[in-house]
């Protein structure tokens, strides 16, 4: 397979930021009370991840390794602020939905971890695809968690009434987020164990 496609696929399933790398679990529990929230935050992350990865890949030889962390934080913060300022001008309707989430991204572990592990070592093009893959992997994870929680907690999907009642209110409370992420992670590990025969290991951060 083409390496760029491989990188995107890698971010989507084998190294999914939420379910396999176990990064940025904080936002994945906090905002995934509905599919819409998950989708909006996911989109915002895709943009910030791609822009930051590209920037770091371009300037990687100029950033002194001893100050790379503050430099990365600055780059992420810069892109978050720029998107936060430009988006309302470009598309006020979209901004109204994502405004709350865009500002949260500065503190996401997944973004800085991709800068540190990938973009600081690789050239521009692979970094772009890695950032994009990780972004849509995160988006996919958020939407999946959001769908399960919204359907079981509020009986709706993307705001449309599906069930007409609320089967499990606990699912849209914070505890429900932990349940859902835990079960999906366990399911993915089980599938991997069945396919490869190896016991999977996962990383972890907030």
């Amino acid at each position, binding site marked *: 397979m083409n390496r760029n496609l491989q990188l995107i696929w890698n971010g989507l399933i084998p190294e999914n930021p939420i379910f396999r790398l176990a990064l940025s679990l904080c936002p994945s529990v906090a905002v995934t009370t509905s599919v819409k929230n998950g989708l909006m935050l996911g989109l915002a992350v895709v943009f910030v991840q791609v822009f930051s990865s590209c920037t770091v890949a371009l300037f990687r030889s100029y950033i*002194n390794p001893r100050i790379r962390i503050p430099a990365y934080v600055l780059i992420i913060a810069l892109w978050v602020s720029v998107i936060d300022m430009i988006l309302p001008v470009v598309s006020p309707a979209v901004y109204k939905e994502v405004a709350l989430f865009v500002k949260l991204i500065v503190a996401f572990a997944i973004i800085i971890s991709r800068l540190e592990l990938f973009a600081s070592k690789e050239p521009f093009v692979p970094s772009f695809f890695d950032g994009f893959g990780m972004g849509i992997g995160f988006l996919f994870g958020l939407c999946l968690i959001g769908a399960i929680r919204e359907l079981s*907690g509020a009986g709706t999907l993307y705001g449309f009434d599906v069930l007409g009642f609320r089967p499990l209110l606990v699912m*849209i409370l914070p505890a429900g987020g932990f349940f859902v992420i835990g079960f999906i992670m366990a399911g993915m590990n089980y599938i991997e164990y069945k396919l490869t025969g190896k016991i999977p290991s996962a990383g972890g951060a907030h």
Partner: protein
Amino acid sequence: MKDILKITASLTAVCVAASLILGAVYTQTEHARKEIEKAEKEEIIKSLLGFGHGHKPPADLVMHAVQRYVISDPSGKTLLGYVLPTKDGKFALVEIDLQGKPVKVLPVDATAAQLAEAATRDLAVSKALPQGAKAKYAETFYIADKGGSRFGYVLPGVTQGFKTFIELMVSLDPEFTIMGVAVEKHEEDPGLGAEITQDYFKNQFVGKTLDILAGLKVVKEPLPADYLEVLDPVKTKLAKLSPEKAKEIKQKHLKDDIYALTGATISSNALTRGVKDTVRKFVYRFDILKKAIDQEKVQAAF
């Protein structure tokens, strides 16, 4: 030693580059963002008066903005100041003391556009005041007239929510019956407290008169199914209710208390308290203002 200088220099360079980009983007987008904010606020006000979602307001609908200031006199006394438009297209500052007695009326030299902008408005008000007096902006409420008669009022309010403040707006008809409630800003929990922004909750306030509002409570009971159908516009469409039937159900539940949101009693209480306080304070203040206008013979535009 040389290393640290290099590190410092490169980190400074990163910071400078970042701040230059941020500054450039900010100045480029500032105007557009402000315009959007203003348009959004206008849309909220219009929809509160029943002209939102594509309904064009009638041509003879006139909105008058009235700003309330808290003024501290050079002598140390606290006064309330209302900046209001007059019939000749100018603006006047009506000063009222805390006992509700009008003190004096000062002309304000400004245009409507200047008064809409926070910085130029504060400047115009402090120029109108005598030397040494300090004015602090409190809020802006709107009076809507239609074809020469009073159409309604739109007033802002703030209340303590679950985590932080909830900013809301209420529209009243000439008899001070609630026409609509809007939540402008809030940080309630998504899926729980954030449901206060949903039509089926907000619309419970519509039609409540001053008397009902005074004794309004929040009850932890499920929302009756027929009431929900009337409150939620989407469900009303689905249920194909005739306007007469909808009106009848609304009338039946008019004196009901507010049905709390499941899992968000605190947020439900907060919005209810906010609406009650906002309306009560406005009715009290507006009564005093009206008397002061009559006494001082101010030619108010409304």
